[in-house]
């Protein structure tokens, strides 16, 4: 489903219908998912629409750039160790209209249930998009339209055993890659104490010849100095 499409086109996949048709000098774009229907008229014809997985922070509202993933099973990490685990993370589907070299977001939707949570306390805490994921040793099976696979490298830099039950990311640094089988990204978590850790994304795919997803919010464009997140309220 992901990739560029020349207008006109029509896609029906599970309960999703996406179509863009030419009518005279305009293009009519329609998207249906359940009771959620959207129609837009584009003052252009014969353009391309790119369907791409995007960061899961836009629906139902763009309230926060942070993503908290809670582990279904807590992990114990041994002192001064590094292990890789695999998590599932939610994705949203973005549709971008292309004209020349520029593109603009036309529509974004998700078929996943949405939830927010607070990391930390109500005064100094951080609002996060919430997701609960199983922890796997190998790449889990996923539904391409709903989930991606995150390869998370966990480094325990402390000298004690530590329990990890969640990880929080700043999604501005999120670099997703996709092909027709799965969506993926790489991330790292450096644990310093039982209360603090640092997380970041790594701009790399799990396999060769994967396509980089379109970035709706680019850290460089937003002039952010860092894409890391420092967890200070527990791990």
């Amino acid at each position: 489903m992901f990739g560029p499409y020349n207008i006109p086109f029509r896609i029906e996949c599970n309960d999703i219908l996406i179509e863009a048709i030419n009518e005279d000098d305009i293009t009519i774009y329609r998207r249906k998912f359940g009771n959620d229907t959207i129609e837009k008229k584009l003052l252009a014809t014969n353009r391309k629409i790119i369907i791409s997985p995007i960061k899961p922070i836009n629906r139902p509202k763009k309230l926060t750039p942070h993503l908290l993933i809670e582990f279904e099973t807590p992990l114990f990490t041994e002192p001064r160790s590094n292990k890789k685990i695999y998590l599932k993370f939610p994705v949203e589907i973005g549709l971008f209209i292309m004209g020349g070299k520029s593109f603009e977001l036309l529509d974004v939707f998700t078929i996943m249930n949405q939830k927010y949570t607070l990391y930390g306390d109500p005064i100094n805490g951080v609002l996060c998009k919430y997701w609960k994921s199983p922890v796997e040793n190998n790449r889990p099976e996923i539904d391409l339209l709903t989930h991606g696979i995150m390869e998370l490298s966990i480094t325990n830099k402390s000298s004690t055993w530590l329990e990890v039950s969640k990880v929080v990311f700043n999604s501005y640094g999120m670099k997703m890659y996709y092909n027709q089988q799965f969506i993926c990204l790489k991330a790292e978590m450096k644990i310093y104490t039982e209360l603090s850790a640092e997380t970041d994304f790594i701009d790399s795919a799990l396999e060769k010849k994967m396509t980089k997803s379109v970035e709706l919010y680019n850290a460089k464009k937003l002039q952010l100095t860092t894409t890391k997140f420092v967890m200070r309220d527990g791990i």
Partner: protein
Amino acid sequence: MIFDQKIYGDITVLDLLISIGVFIIVIIITNRISVYIRRAFKEKMTKDHLELIVKIVTYTIMIIVVLSILGNLGLNPSGLLVAGGVAGLVVGFASQSLFSNLISGLFLIVERPIKIGDQVEINDIRGFVEDIRIISTTLRTYDGLYVRIPNQLVFTTSVINFVSNIVRRVTYVVGIRYSDDADRAIEIIKYVADQEALALKNPVPRAFVDNFGDNSVNINVWIWAPASVYYELKMKLLLEIKKALEAEGIEIAFPQRVVWFGKELENEEEVR
């Protein structure tokens, strides 16, 4: 020529007109600069920070230009301060309130208890902060009224900022009938909260029997929401809770009174 006519000292009418012209041009340029700054940084910083930067740039340019123009007109600003000492005292006393508003405005900008766009309550007036100026703060009330509050009042009165913290608690009291299953009602309320995206997972939503009212068992419901969508959630969720409870046969109780008639009792006793 009228332009060469001297007003005072060596300053001619032409000098005065040039100064006025320069002042007008600078105002236009300053406006253009502020529009450019707003456009360039709109997506890169909050409205509040942006407005602060615009104000600093605008006031700095205006102060420099005014001082330059005064210099060109042969007026030494420092000399003016000394010469106008007595007059300044008189004006100072007269404008005491203006001065305290100005100082309060500066402290408000530095301390920042409120920001542009925040939802606040100041002196029993609720609304959105539209602007924080040097002398006054303007609010747009929820019913769309423009309210100007002197900064001295903002600084000295208690201010409630509804969105200063990132999250806020929605509280309901749901009264169900005594004949209904309170445990089931609590279960349903928690389920409704769990299904709602804007109801936070953590802090955990709570529902518990708070008291036995005259007409109902009162269940307190505490649900945390992002502060920016507090009212949206508050308006939406209560109706959903009512619908979900009613779908399970649990009804919201209303005041009722059972009246016993003495005559009826007597009749019943006679029948017996």
